[in-house]
């Protein structure tokens, strides 16, 4: 088996011989074209991704694009999007023929809520809506449990074994 060490191979470097120059020429041309194609694609990608199409001429006379990093925040424009839906205005005509513009009643307004709670106080019924968002359990709390301090009877084995008698004695004394 013929083997060549790295040093032995380097010694023969000067005797290089190109077996088929035309094949290698075609190969090199192909690689050059691939490189040019890649460069074009990279340029195209760069332009499409990093600018909004606006350009200016710099101090050296080159055309430069405004990049996204130099774009101002949209909040600087001072106009914020209106996310809340405006209540629809209705025209109400009274008996005298006066027309007035009225807004539709809020369903969850604070004022209305206050009115409702005052009314409930008068009626003697209080509805408590517990805020269970900070509770450990994800299970909704029953509002009745929140109001009534429920008495619970638990089974005590010591009591069941005759402590009751002692208690009774003490009471009698």
């Amino acid at each position, binding site marked *: *088996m*013929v*083997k*060549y*060490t*790295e040093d*032995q*191979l*380097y010694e*023969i*470097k000067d*005797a*290089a*011989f*190109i*077996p*088929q*120059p*035309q*094949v*290698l020429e*075609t*190969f*090199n*041309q*192909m*690689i050059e*074209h*691939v*490189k*040019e*194609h*890649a460069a*074009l694609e990279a340029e195209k990608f760069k332009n499409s991704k990093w600018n909004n199409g606006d350009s200016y001429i710099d101090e050296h006379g080159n055309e430069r694009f405004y990049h996204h990093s130099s774009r101002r925040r949209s909040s600087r424009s001072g106009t914020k999007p209106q996310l809340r839906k405006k209540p629809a205005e209705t025209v109400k005509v009274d008996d005298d023929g006066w027309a007035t513009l009225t807004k539709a009643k809020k369903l969850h307004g604070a004022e209305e809520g206050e009115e409702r709670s005052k009314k409930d106080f008068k009626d003697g019924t209080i509805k408590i809506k517990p805020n269970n968002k900070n509770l450990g359990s994800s299970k909704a709390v029953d509002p009745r449990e929140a109001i009534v301090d429920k008495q619970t009877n638990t089974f005590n084995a010591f009591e069941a074994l005759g402590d009751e008698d002692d208690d009774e004695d003490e009471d009698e004394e």
Partner: protein
Amino acid sequence: MKNGELDGDPVKIKKQPRRRYTNNLVKMSEELSKNAEGLSLDDKETVLTNKTEFNVKHPLNSKWTLWYTKPQVNKSEHWHDLLKPVITFSSVEEFWGIYNSIPQANQLPLKSDYHLFKEGIKPEWEDEQNSKGGKWQYAFSNKRDSIIDINDLWLRGLLSVIGETIEDDEDEVNGIVLNVRKQVIRIGLWTRDCDEAKLTKIGERLKKVLKLADEQKIDFMSHEASGKKGAEPLITL
């Protein structure tokens, strides 16, 4: 009139060069395949055929074929269209002639691969002589290993393979591969099978060839396992 035509159809003007470009590449690629088809060193003069006038003085133990994977420039191109045999050689002189005439490792476009395989072996897992084997591989990060000279390491790899000093007489090594990618440059050594005893010795030599430190680990992965998700390397050195 001509100006009017140009102004009226800007899309055509943009598209034309790219189409011409792709056509050129396809034509060149076909030309390369055609040239490589008739490629054989059987009719070349060697020290064995002509003792007085010959170009080849140092025949190699095996004939080697250089393959190239071209990056995809057109979506219609498949893997088989992209992988091309470039040239076959069988002597040290021819190796140097070819090596000096082709782009160096760091001059290749991204997503390119060089493969140097023994003649008759395709650089694919499916090839009968590769199917039961695997590869030793190390990935040089373009950021982390920016100081390394990839041209030198790739050449050292090539020399160890054609000189067949990477192995003893096992005939275990099928070829060597260079992958040029955006983040990393990988060098892989493809083997015929997965015999751990033989592979460990080859792996240790590859580490020396690639000038890797002890903490820089190389992995051996069988081709069969490479296709599976989350597969572990068979050996790590």
